[in-house]
């Protein structure tokens, strides 16, 4: 089956190896006999209803975020419609901030967000930099860990009732205080974790692919055929260990 990924502003938001995440989605789909087609989405592009099964937006520095924030916000209503009818999304780092309501940067300027996640972000004085380990439960009763690296000045505040992506076991997370990281709204996930995220957390790549396939077929997400993930497991273990021994804290 073919899965269409809409990659938002790949020329601008690509600072932390975002193409690694795309490569993992593409390969892991191909190893199960599915094809991933990645379409770049930029300023003024039309997002037709049902055309994309999964959206991806990566990280950028303040300057890149400033350059594209208005154009991304303009795509907000179309993106909201798309996820409203079941498309999945992963937003990382700068893209995570811009998926919220707004991002107020260090100079006090407010960048508009796409409004896909119930949160906003305000840049703080000190950057939160280091390895991170999270505990997530995307499916009831299935506890999993996510290991990654964070580097952000923004403090992200979830609105009342918003669901975080995970609980912080080590590292800063959304704001260094709440003990939570990221945000989840249905099939839309946002996180500060790069590294890139998916190679060392293949279960999350498979979860996203399952949601995308479910969108394509109109059915429920099915479990994907397991793959030999020994290298991935090793990389996860080293990264998790780094977070435990030297993850960031104030």
């Amino acid at each position, binding site marked *: 089956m073919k899965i269409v990924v809409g990659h938002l502003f790949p020329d601008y938001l*690509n*600072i932390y190896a975002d193409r*690694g995440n795309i490569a993992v989605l593409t*390969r892991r789909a191909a190893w199960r006999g599915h094809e991933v087609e990645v379409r770049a989405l930029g300023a003024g592009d039309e997002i037709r209803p049902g055309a994309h099964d999964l959206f991806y937006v990566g990280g950028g*520095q303040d*300057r890149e975020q400033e350059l594209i924030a208005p154009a991304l916000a303009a795509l907000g209503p179309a993106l909201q419609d798309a996820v409203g009818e079941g498309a999945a999304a992963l937003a990382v780092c700068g893209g995570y901030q811009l998926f919220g309501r707004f991002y107020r940067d260090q100079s006090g300027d407010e960048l508009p967000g796409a409004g896909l996640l119930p949160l906003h972000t305000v840049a703080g004085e000190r950057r939160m930099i280091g*390895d991170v380990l999270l505990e997530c439960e995307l499916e009831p009763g299935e506890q999993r860990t996510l290991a990654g690296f964070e580097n952000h000045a923004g403090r992200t505040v979830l609105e009342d009732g918003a669901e975080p992506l995970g609980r912080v076991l080590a590292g800063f997370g959304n704001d260094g205080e709440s003990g939570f990281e990221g945000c989840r709204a249905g099939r839309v996930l946002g996180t500060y974790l790069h*590294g890139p995220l998916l190679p060392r957390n293949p279960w999350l790549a498979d979860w996203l692919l399952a949601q995308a396939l479910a969108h394509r077929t109109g059915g429920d997400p099915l479990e994907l055929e397991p793959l030999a993930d020994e*290298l991935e497991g090793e*990389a996860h273990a080293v990264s998790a260990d780094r977070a435990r021994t030297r993850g960031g804290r104030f």
Partner: protein
Amino acid sequence: MRAPLALEIALARGAARLSRLAGTGGGTTLPGKLLWKLDPGAVDRLAARLPHGSAVISATNGKTTTAAMAARILEPSMRLAHNRAGANLVSGVASALVAARDAELGLFEVDEAALPEVAGRLSPRAVSLGNLFRDQLDRYGELELVAQRWREMASALPRASTLVANADDPQLGAIASERHGSVVFGLDDPRHASPELQHAADSKWCVRCGTPYEYAAAYIGHLGDYRCPSCGHARPPLDVAAREIELHGLESVSFSLDTPEGSTRVALQVPGLYNVYNALAAATLARGLGASLDAIAAGLQGFSAAFGRFERIQLDERSLLVLLIKNPAGANEVVRTLVAGGAPGLLLVALNDEIADGRDVSWIWDVDFEPLLGSLRRLIATGERAAELALRFKYAGFAEDAIEVVPSLEAALDRGLELTPPGGELTALPTYTAMLALRDLVARRGFVKPYWEQAA
């Protein structure tokens, strides 16, 4: 103030000897750290004693090589204080000042983040800015921030100082344009342009108005001949240029060095376009310090390789080729050079994640390793983050059963040599601390001198 300074220097020199005697390293930063602790102002006073003053070199990529090339040009005519082993924070500069007793000129490569402080203390006669790429964002923060600090540093330089900058880097071209009397260099040979802007290009948007630049030629990352179609910000006219560039695989590169004083053909004994940039930076800096065109050409042609950067080490019947990788732009050039020389079938890549390597290893995913895959038969992935590196190649489409994950560097080196036939060469791509460890391993086996002896 004289007596205390002399005492401090004596103490610091003693510390370097102790460090070497204790076998803890070369003492390349210890005396400087000590001096720094005792009296930070001592660095300023030591530098002020140099009769020909100081010159400093910074860049994301090529600092060590550029400084080594400049040293080669300047050494015949004056005695240098030079932090050759790459200890490039304030403490490393202080150590080099302490160690060089009768130096006439200070020649220092300086860490990007440390440059404003070092320039403030040294009041250098000349400052060379080579390039700015994304590198260790976990340590430096955002690229724009480094550029902003450099801009402030440049405007605070004494009036008599010469600013030398790479015009092909939009950020640096803009900094140079803001300072009267700056001297800029660049490449001018579109035959060697990349067909498209590389993934690792960073400053792709006009530094003034944010519009994407149009490139008449992009050479490495975002370095090239750019122009903003909207506001007109463009590469400034080149004072010093490399033209008619001829690349000769892994062996060498030659070019015409065009300066206001005339032109000369330079044949470098190191390969790649990135070394043409390093040579231009060294030549322009040396010119600013009074070196003649003949001295510049002779120095560049006599240069072989800087420590761990394209260094060939003979190990009995086999040789080891060491190419440092540390960020996407630099690693891409290593890959490009290897491919031009006939890419190897066996490769050892070592990924560490110490502070000097960058604790965030995500950068390996932004390196274009793919051109190597066509001829690669076996990969030995080693270092503290060996598994992560193996994943980079696996998800690039390289067969998992052709990857050996050997986290121990020593075991990986032995395995690599075992797979290399007698008379053959093992190619190793280590990150910074892995490079030091690898050299240490072959030094303990008696094949190279420890770095502090080589640096002396």
